[in-house]
């Protein structure tokens, strides 16, 4: 099966030719499968934010290519089709700071209007996007600035969902939210994924959250891809991840320590139910 998004030797250098030159991406080769939820992790400055801005053509690669549906998004003339922005929806960090319209409905409609959709279609999409992120319909005519921080973020995410992107990319969508708000946002993202079958990319700090939602994970370190695979495959390298300055889920840490003390358990465990299974297996299938 072909990848929906693919990068080939993607390299990006900030401030090329100045004393402040810095390589943010160094020959990155990744393939994103249609319909998957991919978690992207890496510590600050590992290049993950730079990477996602290449997916919709906001940044132009210094060298290498980004392919959407197998076609390069930058043509020979060095232009990027505007359509790419609509097919790959990008939600930035703290998206609530980009709200500007008088009413919530108008703000969410900004994307669809830029796509040139007819009014009825726009209205339908706004309604649907609001429903997906759990905003009551009567809020539509309210000012987005009258909302709480968490609600503002939902409006901002709805603004991107309304464009119905095939690939939804979210940069730290849960930053600065309480655990409850965090679960809600992740719930809406899953709901969009379930309803539309879109591919979802989640860039996150919290390993625990990513591991819970993602089908596959991508670990970035020093401008390069360090690891890819299912959460289990990735956490089997827990020691390397910790060495790269990233955190692993608490339960994985417990299992790493158990192994260090000579208990023959599988260290790739990252949720409590998995931990239970692992301990049962160790005790020969007897309940603990």
């Amino acid at each position, binding site marked *: 099966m072909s990848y929906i998004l693919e990068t080939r030797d993607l390299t990006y250098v900030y401030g090329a030719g100045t004393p402040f030159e810095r390589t943010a991406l160094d020959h990155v080769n990744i393939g994103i499968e249609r319909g998957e939820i991919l978690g992207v992790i890496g510590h600050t400055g590992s290049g993950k934010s730079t990477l996602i*801005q290449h997916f919709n053509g906001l940044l132009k690669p210094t060298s290498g290519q980004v392919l959407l549906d197998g076609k390069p998004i930058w043509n020979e003339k060095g232009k990027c089709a505007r359509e790419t922005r609509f097919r790959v929806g990008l939600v*930035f960090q703290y998206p609530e*700071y980009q709200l500007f319209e008088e009413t919530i409905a108008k703000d969410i409609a900004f*994307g669809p209007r830029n*796509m040139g959709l007819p009014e009825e279609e726009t209205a339908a999409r706004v309604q649907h996007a609001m429903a997906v992120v759990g905003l009551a319909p009567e809020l539509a005519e309210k000012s987005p600035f009258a909302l709480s921080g968490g609600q503002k973020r939902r409006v901002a995410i709805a603004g991107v969902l309304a464009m119905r992107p095939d690939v939804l990319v979210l940069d730290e969508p849960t930053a600065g939210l309480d655990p409850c708000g965090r679960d809600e946002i992740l719930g809406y993202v899953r709901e969009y994924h379930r309803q539309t079958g879109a591919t979802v990319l989640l860039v996150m700090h919290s390993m625990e959250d990513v591991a819970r939602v993602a089908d596959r994970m991508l670990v970035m370190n020093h401008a390069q891809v360090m690891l890819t695979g299912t959460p289990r495959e990735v956490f089997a390298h827990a020691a390397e991840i910790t060495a790269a300055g990233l955190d692993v889920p608490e339960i994985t840490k417990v299992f790493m320590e158990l192994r260090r003390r000579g208990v023959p358990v599988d260290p790739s465990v990252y949720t409590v139910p998995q931990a239970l299974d692992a301990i049962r297996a160790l005790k020969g299938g007897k309940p603990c």
Partner: protein
Amino acid sequence: MLKDITIGQFFPGESPVHRIDPRVKIVLVIAMIVTLFLGAGPVSYGLFILFLLMVVHISKIPLKMVVRGLKPILFIVIFTAILNLFYTPGDTYIFEWGFLHISTAGVKTAILMVLRIMLLIVGTSMLTYTTSPIQLTDGLESLLSPLKKLHAPVHELSMMMSIALRFIPTLIEETDKIMAAQKARGADFESGNIVQRAKALVPILVPLFISAFRRADELATAMECRLYRGDVGRTRMRQLKVTRVDYAASAVCAAVFGAVIALGRFGL
């Protein structure tokens, strides 16, 4: 793109030029500007250029950076040159065509004016290149402090200036972020006529203003939490002190500026 502006930028360093007390530096720059307009001929300006090159060399600011700082005023320089070239009356004309004529005096004034503007920019930008904005406002406040006797709000003005300078890079970064976010939603800033382009700025300006107000509010709270209450009874972390570097710099400047003015008097 917005990050490429270099004029008025500060380049941190440890050179003697960086270490000169900001008050002394400001006074010396004012003296330099006065001197610049009292010079007259190739000898005095040659000496002046030599002096500036020496300052640039000691400060370890790359010459390329200094030259790049001249780019924004290129238009003014060319405009001045053309005006002076064609509109200065003189006895001997070296070029005449219809109503256009260039006199030898015109050539001389044009060169002189262009030189003056460029040296003015280079000289004053050496002040901003080697002095941090905080030091600059501290120096300015200290120099203007006699006006406090007349109840002029000197401290408040300099605090406003420091805060404004401090937030320029922050707001530029913020603008870049907001632009990227709106572009991701399909906003188009590059095409359309002037009205459409102006309208396209609304999605940037509204969030930018809101964030500027939010930052101002947070800053005010933070300042109040630290019991900021203006000038009265306030001590400083960085005391301004005149040291040997300052005496040396003043002596060198006095000698050079004196020589330039003297040479200028003789029309050299």
